[in-house]
């Protein structure tokens, strides 16, 4: 999938060869709605390197999708606004780019796939057309040639009889095949970053594994960086290099995936381990975390997890815990992270 375009610049600005692929720093996103201001992302930071995978983990509403949309620059605005922080793609600040320049990055350099490919694909256009549109709009490739390229891509993501299926509509495919179409479309211009927002949540377990395997294989071939938003802790342990655990728009724990997985240092991460289904461990029964996340319109002072936290003490209501270094790479936003990390110390 080599392209003839130079990849040493981003929207006309030279890249910094020493910079990591993507650096997100202290990202803040809010939605200004009638009821008030929803603080959906409050200070998220992570670094994605070439060929690596960063997993973003968290309950529904924790700000995973919104943070990914901020990186893509596709937040509904209004009501949504990126109010602070930095998103640097190979050293180039994306938040400073004009909408027209950002559009050149979107889909071409950074692509995204979504949870439900049935609704994410346009129901009234053939899938081949939808893939070919990438070549036609970004590269000015003529219709016929773009169609051939689309068929090649469909073959590459292992859609059987791609040539005939290119004329089919999204509803004529199975869930897994539809997600393959999404992947083909996202990878059409050989992006350097792929953001996958819960790409397997809507699929059967066996199909989930196939899609994850496909993503891993494609990542191996292309060396792209992958931002994987997921609920599946097993997947995190298997494929992620780094993991960021989000709660109420904040990062509560972050680090290389194995230490975070095997020795979590935040009560919320521990709770997630017991509450979410895992492919690698057959848990007897799931224990959901009691209670629900705070109202993002009015996040109380102190630790946002306090009302649900079995470790909570007085200080938790008064002081918001800073990110404490568990190791040089592993951080946890908990006053009592040492106590928490002893929980799984023997494991």
């Amino acid at each position, binding site marked *: 999938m080599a392209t003839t375009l130079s990849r040493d610049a981003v929207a006309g600005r030279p890249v910094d060869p020493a910079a990591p692929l993507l650096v997100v720093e202290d990202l803040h996103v809010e939605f200004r709605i009638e009821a008030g201001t929803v603080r959906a992302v409050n200070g998220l930071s992570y670094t994605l390197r070439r060929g690596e995978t960063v997993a973003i983990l968290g309950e529904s509403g924790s700000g995973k999708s919104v943070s990914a949309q901020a990186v*893509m620059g*596709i937040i509904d605005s209004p009501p949504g606004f990126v109010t602070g922080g930095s998103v640097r793609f190979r050293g180039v600040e994306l938040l400073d780019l004009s909408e027209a320049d950002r*559009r*050149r*990055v*979107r*889909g*071409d350099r950074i*692509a*995204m796939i*979504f949870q*439900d490919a049935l*609704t*994410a*694909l*346009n*129901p*009234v*256009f*053939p899938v081949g057309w939808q893939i070919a*549109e*990438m070549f036609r*709009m*970004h590269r000015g490739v003529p219709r016929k040639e773009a169609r051939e390229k689309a068929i090649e891509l469909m073959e590459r993501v292992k859609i059987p009889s791609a040539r005939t299926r290119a004329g089919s*509509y999204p*509803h004529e495919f199975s869930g897994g095949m539809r997600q393959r179409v*999404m992947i083909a*479309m996202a990878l059409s211009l050989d992006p350097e970053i792929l953001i996958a927002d819960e790409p397997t949540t809507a699929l059967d377990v066996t199909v989930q594994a196939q899609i994850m395997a496909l993503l891993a294989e494609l990542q191996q071939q292309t060396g792209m960086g992958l931002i994987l938003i997921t609920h599946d802790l097993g997947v995190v342990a298997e494929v992620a290099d780094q993991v960021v655990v989000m709660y109420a728009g904040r990062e509560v724990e972050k680090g290389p995936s194995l230490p975070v997985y095997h020795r979590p240092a935040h009560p919320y991460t521990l709770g997630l381990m017991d509450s979410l289904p895992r492919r690698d461990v057959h848990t007897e029964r799931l224990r959901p975390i009691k209670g629900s996340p705070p109202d993002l319109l009015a996040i109380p002072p102190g630790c946002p997890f306090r009302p649900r936290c079995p470790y909570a003490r007085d200080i938790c209501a008064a002081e918001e815990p800073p990110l404490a270094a568990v190791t040089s790479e592993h951080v946890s936003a908990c006053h009592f992270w040492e106590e928490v990390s002893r929980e799984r110390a023997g494991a």
Partner: protein
Amino acid sequence: MGRYLIRRLLQFIPVFFGATLLIFIMVWAIPGDPIAALAGDRVLPEQVVQQIRDRYNLDDPLIVQYGKYMGGVFQGDFGEDFRGRPVTDLLGQRLPITVRLALLAFGFEVVLGIIAGILAGVRKGGFVDNLVLISTLVVIAIPIFVLGFLAQLLLGVRFGWFPVSGVQHGLYSYLLPAMVLGSVSLAYIARLTRTSLIENLRADYVRTATAKGLSRRRVVGIHTFRNSMIPVVTFLAIDLGSLMGGAIITETIFNIPGLGRAVFEGVQRQEGTVVVGIVTFLVLVYMMANLLVDVLYAVLDPRIRYE
């Protein structure tokens, strides 16, 4: 598709007979004696009256009259008016006029309605949106004959921008009546397009299209537009019928010698054959148009499968 078409055509049969029978009963139920109306102040000899009654089967029971009439229709005979002129002649003369009026009205409402709806929908709550919402509400709230007389008085008589009545000025004479005829549907189409567009703009596939790096213009104009048109096309199918109905009022106001006015005059003169003949023909046209739109609908939305 073939099987679907056959089924639809079979459905035509009860619809056709039901609609025409209803019309027949309604015309028959118009109070007064048609022959007396025809004669005006004169007193016709008993013999002549009986002759007319025989000729139009007026002494048969209603259902027999209907049966005889339908028998004629299937041989291309839509009956005669009281002056002995075949209704088919009347149709041939008046139909092109009404078709011209209806097509103009249809084009007017579809083009302007969709444009207004899109402009309103892309900036929900903006100035254009409010303008469209309020003006369409006004148009919908005012009865069409009031709107027609107002337009005639203001744009025709007062400002003299358009011919006031008749069709002496060629296509130009049809403009104002067509705008009046299409106005209410235009308002509905604008509102429907707006709602449908706003709803579709929230859809997941729009987010995908944006994430593909497409321009806003393409996201709205290609991806969202096609999907937004699906309910609008459904409305258009129903609307064809109201255009025909509206033509009766509009042609009367603007004195346009089309089918609508022919029906109006037929009702006034209690010429059952004329009313039933024309309406029967319109029912046929309407059903065919509906079928055509249904087929178009499948082209627009591939998820629809006719089997």
